[in-house]
């Protein structure tokens, strides 16, 4: 691997229930896997209380998923995941900028994607249509279309859209919640990474450009001399854009107006948030519940990289 940055990731999800939960079932998408530009050195989960059922698997998009069930009454559940991941150091903006000139025109994306004869995994044809949380609406189409002038290359147009969303939308965690419809966030021009990613995906797909939703992490502290990014306190979300069979998928982060690079660690990829939400749980409880999430992504100094296998705290 080329020069790389190593991150130590700790992700805590803790539920507290006012009344004991007799039975619970969850699906976790908290385990990163090796992908282009990232290598997972170690990864693990700690569950308290320990589950009675636990199965590991892979979904059709290639994400690692863990299915668990709790049979005993419990009043709290804490899920701690940790991972050590190496991400290739590269100036992502420069690299993507270089692609801008030589990528195909965006108008060809739809037909190129439709020509494929694969329906599985990340085949681009599965990312062209509306999905549960992404509606293809005229206002978003019109907004996105301003970046997609006739004859422009797909990478250039997509970078432009990424930067416009960064410029036009206000990062405001109070404006939306996890189930705010994409059109509402679009009209309000406010929201968080999930909303911005959904808006961008809706615009791209409406134009016939395959677009995927990426969940992952950002490094908590920026490298010296660089600004702190938005979205470091929880899992982050950005967009993967398909740019033809030669270039494939590239990551663009509309929340920060940049290409996804060495500060981004990919957790899972899907059509929208509903395919990749880190913890899906169904809990039978009449009472209220409290939720606490904490994410820490720390660069491991080069000297500390060897021989450290024990990461549990």
């Amino acid at each position, binding site marked *: 691997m080329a020069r790389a940055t190593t991150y130590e990731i700790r992700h805590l999800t803790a539920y507290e229930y006012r009344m004991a939960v*007799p*039975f619970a*079932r*969850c*699906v976790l998408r908290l385990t990163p896997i090796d992908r282009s530009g990232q290598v997972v050195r170690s990864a693990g989960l700690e569950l308290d209380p320990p589950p009675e*059922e636990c*199965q590991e698997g892979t*979904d*059709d*998009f290639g994400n690692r998923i863990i*299915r668990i*069930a709790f*049979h005993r009454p419990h009043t709290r559940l804490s899920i701690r995941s940790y991972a050590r991941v190496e991400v290739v150091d590269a100036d992502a903006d420069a690299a993507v900028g270089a692609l801008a000139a030589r990528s195909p025109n965006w108008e060809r994306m*739809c*037909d190129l*994607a*439709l020509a*494929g*004869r*694969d*329906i*599985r995994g990340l*085949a681009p*044809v*599965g990312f*062209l*249509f*509306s*999905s*549960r949380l992404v*509606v*293809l*609406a*005229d206002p978003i*189409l019109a907004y996105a279309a301003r970046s997609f002038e006739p004859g422009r290359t797909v990478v250039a147009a997509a970078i432009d859209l990424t930067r416009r969303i960064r410029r036009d939308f206000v990062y405001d965690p109070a404006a939306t919640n996890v*189930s705010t419809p994409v059109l509402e966030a679009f009209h309000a021009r406010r929201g968080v990474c999930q909303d911005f990613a959904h808006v961008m995906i809706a615009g791209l797909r*409406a*134009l*016939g450009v395959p677009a995927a939703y990426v969940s992952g992490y950002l490094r908590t502290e920026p490298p010296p001399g660089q600004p702190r990014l938005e979205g470091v306190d929880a899992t982050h979300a950005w967009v993967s854009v398909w740019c033809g069979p030669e270039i494939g998928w590239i990551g663009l982060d509309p929340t920060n107006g940049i290409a996804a690079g060495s500060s981004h660690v990919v957790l899972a990829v899907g059509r929208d948030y*509903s395919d990749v*939400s880190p913890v*899906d749980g*169904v809990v039978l409880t009449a009472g209220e519940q409290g939720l606490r999430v904490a994410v820490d992504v720390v660069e491991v100094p080069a000297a500390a990289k060897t021989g450290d296998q024990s990461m549990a705290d």
Partner: protein
Amino acid sequence: MRFGGRVRPDLAPLIAGYRPHPGVYDELIDASGGMRSHWEPLIGQLAGYGTEATARIFEAADRHLRDAGVVYRVYDGPGGAERPWPLSHLPLVMPLAEWQILADGIVQRARLHEALLADLYGEARTVKEGLVPAALVAGNREYLRPLIGVSPTGGAYLHLYAADVSRAPDGRWWVLNDRTQAPSGLGYAIENRIALSRAVPELFRSLNVDRLAAFYQRFRASLANLAGRPDPRIAVLSPGPLNETYFEHAYLARSMGFLLVEGGDLTVHRDAVYVRTVDGAQRVDAIIRRIDADFADPLELNTASRLGVPGLIEAIRAGTIILANALGSGVAEAPALGAYLPALARRLIGEDLQLSNLATWWCGDPAVRADVIAHLNERAVLPAFGRTLSNGQMEHSGIVGAGLTSPERIRLIGMLQTRGLDFIGQEPVRLATTPVWERGRLVPRHYALRVFAARASDGWHVMPGGLCRISERADARQLSMQRGGRSADVWVTCDRPPDWSILVPAPEDVEVSRETSALPSRAADNLFWLGRYLERADALLRLVRGLVGWGSESGPSDDEETPSERLSGILASWGAIPFATTEPRVAAAEALRSEFVGALPSVLGQALRTASAVRDRLSPDAWRALGELSASFPPHRQGAERDDLAGAADRSAPEMSDRIEAALRTISALAGLAHENMNRAGGWRFLDLGTRVERAIVVARFSRRMAQPSSDPSLAISSLDRLLDLTDAQTAYRARYLSGPALKPVLDLVLLDASHPRSVAFQVERIVAHLDKLGGRGLQTQPDVAQTRAYRLCERLRRIEVSSLGEEAIVETEAALMVISDAITERYLAGPPPAED
């Protein structure tokens, strides 16, 4: 008239004005203007009856449907509304030979779709070979990725298949839609048959109409067989009472001995599916799925679903549960696939497709799209996946190109050019026509026929009949029961009487049996609360009657509570009015009309809501009576000045009394219906438990408030007098005591006398009897709190001295009843998860 010479003279009056539409196939009249011979027996018979008698016969059929409570739900406005099922009285008549051609084609399509699903969820060879565009699979939201590579339990994706068909002008059948997800209509089809065959029994027999029963029996038997164990449990998984076709879910469950469940009734434990019942969790072997697949498992599919069963896909992977139809089967319904079915048939089953689709063009292909746009006037444009486009661009029924205004046309072309892949073009179709009886005459009306096929161990079987839907409009895509359509029975006529020896009894002759099916906890819970709500409504009406009947009175001093104030105090403590008032008529009006949560409209609304969730267990009469009761006390907006209320109440006092009396009669009629008609093995016991618990609580509350001491003896007596009214105890009291109401005798009668049917002691003895019966069911793994507490309370009421019955003792009784109610809920209704293996 062109067909003059060929029509029997006695039939001429009926069809004198019958004019088939040009260029459209008509079932009754052939191209040369003569009547098709297979209609002659039916039309001849009707001509023999004459117009008036025929009308009477058809009214009888309508009456059957009404009495049987056959309804469907229309989605207009909040919650929608139920409509009686509209029957078009004349059946569609089809000779067996003609029917067989259609049936053969339907079986072939069922086999084709099964093979297609197996391929798409398996190796997807047909996509790799280019026989079907990848986008039409991967882009379809019904293509459920978690199900890829998962083979269906029982070996088949489809157990039930349906197609909507009509005829081309030359009489050949073509297919409008394939239904592979969860075909609806089986319940309505059988109700149409029952209604009509009862109205015209001789006619039905003389035409040798093929019977439907064997089809239903075979479907049931085949699912039961696949389960591979004796007495398998088969559930109908419904979205619940607000669904358009909930009646049908309940009907199928009731008539075929399936368990009607909602997602919350089912739970997955160690990869197997269980239903929560009052007897504990019990294994489910097969699910007849009437919810959309994406909602079936909130863990691995749509996490926003509240209708599904968390972990269901795990159970499917483990092969422990049969789904009819399999999750993901809906992908085969996409109208866009129609364009590719002929080639798919040759590749997948090595046959030429017997029934054609409407000509279909997918606009994801640039050349095809250009051609559709060029011929827009001769095309209809529809969403490719048959699903309404979520941005409001197009309904699932699509748009017909001809007749569009210029801006509409420009907009449609714009949509096709930016997102052609979302659309298909189809040839517009003019549906064939069949005769319909309207105001004493026959007229041609457009129809589409839904034909059903079910899988059995020896292959697919087609139901000899179906659901014929009739429309005023010619365009197939406008056909919808939501838009005021009607439906007709379908009679497949044989040359000889059907072979009775192979026929099992028709479902219409089979006695409903529920003895063996477990009572889901949710159903029991709803019945329990229905009992409680109805009894609370009864108590509210009695309180209001007490307030209205006595008028206002004032006590000797402001410190002393009048009996009316005590009554309104009870209303306030139940949240029926905001606070106690000295003005009885205001309290009465508010309790009957307001939106307060404890007021009558809200309590009746809750009763109706709980009843709607157990429709399959209530008689149509009971359901109708409850609906009328609730409708007669609509909530009025709050904020009216109390003085206005008093004035309005004064003006309408006599009318109010009448309504109260009528409502009390309805509630007691409902109790009678339940008592006389409900199966004791089913939910009746929980309904009665709810009634008894609530009545005991209510009477204890009445007693505590009305028997409170007062320094004014006349007020105390008047208060006790009203307590006797509230508890229907005047007659019993007078028969026993010559004097007027006195504290100890009154309390003895309404609290302790177990022979008085409204006393607390009587209710508690009934509760004990019910719990004794229930206690014998299922596994006794824990001491039964409800039973223990009920015994204790019963014993206490038997032993207690009436002189020691102070306020404190009554409060204790009320508290004990609440504990019993909670314990019943926990023991039988909350549905604990299955015990650890």
